[in-house]
């Protein structure tokens, strides 16, 4: 049964609806797709939605089939079905607009920073979806979100936001120290904003070294990096 409105009886297990937003190149897609795969592995029905309508590169398009093979339904353009990228005119895919009417969990990957986060308003039912949790992904190694003040200002520009994800990393150079330092900064920002830090994310090896919780006590989610394969 699809919970269309609050009047119908909800499913016994509440569905998970998460929207990942945040600074350009902060790691939203990587965090979102790993979350979708994680839920899929738990045997849940998951739809992952690519809502980047600005940026032609680093979208889910090139890895759509790979992710579908791993059990997640992916709503993203396919190269042969789209015309034009970026300035040439990417449009919102029709089934992405209606993604929240689907059964099961829905993970929304919303690209391109503060401006991109407005794309959420194009999704039907986003305003009334009671399970919707909007999470801002933050990489403290990105200079625009490098300090507590920067993060607070940045997140305030995207409200409503329900929680933060510390995705601090330096690509191949990431160490547990880099991630832990990021956790401290994100934690500081979260306290000022009055928001929870729902997770610290890191590639498996680093996540293992940190353990189940980071230095600020937030749960650690291990990531497998898929996005380097998704360039253009």
């Amino acid at each position: 049964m699809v919970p269309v409105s609050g009047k119908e009886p909800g499913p016994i297990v509440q569905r998970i609806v998460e929207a990942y937003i945040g600074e350009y190149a902060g790691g939203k897609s990587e965090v979102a797709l790993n979350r979708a795969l994680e839920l899929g592995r738990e045997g849940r029905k998951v739809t992952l939605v690519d809502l980047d309508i600005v940026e032609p590169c680093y979208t889910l398009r090139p890895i759509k089939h790979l992710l579908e093979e791993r059990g997640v339904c992916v709503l993203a353009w396919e190269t042969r079905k789209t015309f034009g990228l970026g300035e040439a005119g990417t449009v919102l895919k029709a089934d992405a607009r209606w993604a929240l009417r689907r059964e099961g969990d829905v993970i929304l990957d919303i690209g391109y920073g503060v401006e991109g986060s407005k794309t959420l308003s194009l999704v039907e039912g986003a305003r009334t979806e009671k399970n919707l949790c909007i999470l801002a992904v933050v990489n403290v190694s990105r200079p625009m979100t490098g300090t507590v003040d920067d993060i607070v200002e940045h997140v305030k520009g995207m409200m409503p936001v329900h929680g933060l994800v510390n995705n601090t990393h330096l690509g191949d150079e990431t160490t547990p120290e880099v991630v832990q330092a990021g956790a401290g900064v994100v934690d500081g920002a979260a306290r000022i904003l009055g928001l929870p830090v729902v997770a610290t994310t890191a590639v498996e090896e680093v996540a293992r070294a940190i353990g189940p919780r980071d230095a600020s006590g937030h749960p650690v989610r291990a990531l497998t990096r898929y996005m380097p394969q998704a360039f253009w």
Partner: protein
Amino acid sequence: MGDKPIGGEKRVFMTGNEVVAYGALAAGADIMYGYPITPQNEIMHYWTRMVPKYGKGFLQTEDELSAGFTTIGGVLAGKRAFTATAGPGNVLMQEPMSMAEAMRLPTVAVVQQRGGPSTATVIYSQQEVILTTMGGNGEGLRVVYSTATHQELFDYTIKAFNTAWKYRFPTFVLGDGYQAKMRESLTLYDPEDRGIEMVVPEAFVGRSGTPGVDRPPAQYRNTYSMEEELAGALAENIAAYEKAAPEISEYEEMGTQDADLVIVAHGVVSRAAKLAARDLGKEGIRVGYFRPITLRPLPVKRIRELAGGTGTFLVVESAYGQLARILMEAAFGAAVRIVPLYKPGVGVTSEEVVTRVRELVGQSL
């Protein structure tokens, strides 16, 4: 004015376009003039985000002709001014940059190459080599740095301002769509902390004193009535350029001593070339790697030395022989054989380079 933008050295993770914006900020650029075009847009986006914080300027113009001419205006007024563009925007940019060349003005333009001809793709290519090095009417008296990494995008954006102001030739930083959008770590720094002294810009117009009495007249001309007058001005500018060229030109090389085959590439493709040379070396196949960092002026002396002592140059590029063309001109008369690996408009992997080298080595056995 706001705080100093970059305090101390900091390891960061960024996209190439952001790196350029931060590089310009670190170089003390005063104002950017620009018109949006993919794949350079985030240079403008990030620059404009930082403008209020650091007391900088930005003007969005109606097209790239205007972006180039307003950059010239900023420079004439004594501002460290710059612009950024790509593809068809770079075509329009050639007219103002020719004017800067004629008037010997220190403009800085960052170009993130995209596919051509015409509007083609917004994605990537190395097809703006001839356009950026020789695109104007005139003699191509300009400096073009071709970067390969995010660190270099930062370093050479800073350096471009100094080269431009020191030698007074239009200076370009030539990147591409891949470099623009890729994410990579690099170290940001304040040039002053590394002992890099930024040339202080001077106003070209509105100087104090009476011209011809208190100071030499400031004449910056792009038009001449008589052929002889133009020939005289050109001779002076060409002589200045030729004198500066050996000081400006830069290259990178690896394992070229006694190598019979040298892989030549520039920009982001040189990463694949370098990796291929390294991997082949591990297999015992000795190949050299050479990369001009300045595409204009080319490191002619070193190219001629290599061309004289090397059997084959394998020229690898995401264009149909644009690097090869300027390379052949520099190496003219040398015995070296030029073998192409041209992939116009698409990227080149190290595996493709390795395969081509294996074929060539196999042929010569």
